[in-house]
């Protein structure tokens, strides 16, 4: 693996790119310029090879067979859990629960925590910059339990209103759920500080880490979060697998989410007793191959070094911000002082959809629309944005192409 930093010592984006086969593709006759990593990242060879090897050599169902092959698959699945535990600094292995993704992780907590601890008069606190995945599950459980959903506002720069948060936390709040990094604005929230504030009132905090984990080191013990949710496919791993970290004390108090095999200890028609953690929350056959791919992605990330990735993406952010600021009529949405590697924008007199369509014709893949954050669009009074988001393989040359592409599109449209 030429891109592996551990062997070369310096971050070399061109070497990294060689590990991602899809980046060789052409789009509409041009080299693919992939600027939609926030939606889903591309996959490096070691991830593809690990999953292929798993299916070729080791596949059987987990935790069930007395035979060797099933044991191998189980070992690989559990090794992945251990890798995640170390990667995010969780204290216990059983605090790592495999899910299908961030969305399922949040639904699990909303449903299980909510049915155990929410009642009429209680409040659930979220923020204005949440992904729909961290809004709708809470709306559903609030409807079911009679609790109230409250929303912490954000500033014009796209930063969380910390004073308002402090006030809201004094209400009858049972849980605070917020994003670590906004997928639309790029804002990085001061999670450690926020958790401290919430814990003063004994309020647990769930953090949506979908956009944080792939871009900088995250340690759930240092952050002292109660729940942390993220997706494999946004961190260079496969689709279909996600993680919920939960503190033991909370997970033990919460009822199961789904019922089925794997999650039980004994079943009779009168009463079923549940398996211990983490299996209590993992009903049915899990995504074993996904866990293997995720494990490989974690090792790949560690090989490159998350600090190196953060530094690279920061540099891109600075470079890209300057480039886009020069474009007449372009307005960046999200100008937080602490911001992750993405640029959301609108151009006066044009619709994001038109810009996105024309960029696609030039081989540039960006996302347009509301990015599953409609409240942010309403907050800023826009129909959507164009969003370019970076990964470890993004280059400055690609940002040059983006800027030139936008100028060309605007010229056509105005």
């Amino acid at each position, binding site marked *: 693996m030429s891109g592996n930093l551990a062997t070369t010592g310096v971050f070399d984006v061109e070497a990294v790119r060689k590990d991602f086969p899809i980046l060789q593709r052409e789009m*509409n006759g041009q080299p693919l310029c992939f600027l939609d990593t926030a939606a889903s990242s591309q996959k490096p060879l070691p991830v593809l090879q690990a999953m292929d090897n798993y299916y070729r050599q080791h596949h059987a169902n987990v935790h069930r067979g007395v035979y060797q092959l099933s044991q191998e698959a189980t070992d690989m699945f559990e090794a992945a859990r251990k890798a995640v535990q170390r990667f995010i600094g969780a204290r216990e292995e059983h605090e790592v629960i495999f899910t299908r993704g961030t969305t399922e992780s949040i639904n699990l907590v909303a449903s299980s925590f909510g049915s155990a601890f929410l009642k009429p008069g209680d409040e659930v606190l979220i923020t204005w910059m949440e992904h729909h995945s961290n809004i709708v599950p809470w709306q559903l459980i609030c409807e079911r339990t009679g609790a109230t959903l409250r929303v912490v506002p954000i500033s014009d720069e796209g930063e969380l209103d910390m004073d308002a948060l402090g006030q809201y936390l004094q209400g009858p709040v049972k849980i605070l759920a917020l994003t670590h990094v906004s997928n639309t604005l790029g804002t990085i929230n001061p999670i450690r500080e926020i958790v401290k504030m919430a814990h003063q009132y004994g309020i647990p905090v769930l953090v949506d880490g979908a956009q944080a984990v792939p871009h900088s080191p995250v340690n759930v013990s240092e952050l002292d979060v109660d729940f942390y949710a993220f997706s494999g496919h946004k961190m260079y791993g496969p689709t279909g697998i996600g993680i919920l970290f939960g503190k033991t004390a909370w997970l033990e108090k919460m009822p199961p989410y789904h019922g089925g095999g794997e999650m039980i200890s004994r079943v009779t028609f009168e009463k079923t007793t549940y398996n211990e953690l983490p299996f209590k929350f993992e009903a049915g056959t899990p995504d074993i191959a996904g866990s293997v791919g995720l494990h490989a992605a974690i090792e790949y990330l560690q090989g490159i070094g998350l600090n190196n990735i953060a530094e690279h993406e920061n540099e891109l952010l600075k470079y890209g911000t300057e480039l886009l600021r020069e474009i007449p009529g372009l307005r960046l949405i999200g100008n937080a002082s602490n911001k992750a590697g993405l640029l959301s924008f609108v151009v006066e007199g*044009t*619709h*994001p*959809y*038109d810009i996105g*369509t*024309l960029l696609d*014709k030039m081989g540039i893949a960006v996302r*347009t*629309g*509301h990015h599953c954050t409609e409240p942010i669009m309403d907050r800023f009074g826009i*129909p*959507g944005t164009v969003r370019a988001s970076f990964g470890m393989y993004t280059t400055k040359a690609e940002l040059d192409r983006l800027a030139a592409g936008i100028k060309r599109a605007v010229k*056509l*449209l105005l």
Partner: protein
Amino acid sequence: MESINQIQDAIIEEFSFFGDWLEKYEYIIELGKDLPLIDEQYKTEDYLVRGCQSKVWLHANLEDGKVVFKADSDAVITKGIIALLIRVLSGHSPQEILDADLYFLDKIGLKEHLSPTRANGLVSMLKQMKLYALAFQKQLTGKNE
């Protein structure tokens, strides 16, 4: 009046002169800019066809047994394609519209805009156009029922 297929064929012929995507989109954008497609009074929730990304407004009338469509969008490329769809479908009888097979978008390389994943409202708009035609068709034949 030309038939729906005659109009489609004429559009395919026109588009065959474009050398690359740029010329094609320049033309579509011009169509989008030129056409004031709908009265402001119809740009309301009632006439809104929801796309996820761009909004489309659609209004239809029956005049002398022919359906007259008016539509608009907030995105200019979507609007340009709407202009083409209206050129093809507007002014025909409900039955002709119901029977229409729209092959021209595929032939001029714009089929991608009718993919549901685009969420630009065009798929819903076409469905809505057929629904209007169906409703008018019922009105016309209703006398015999």
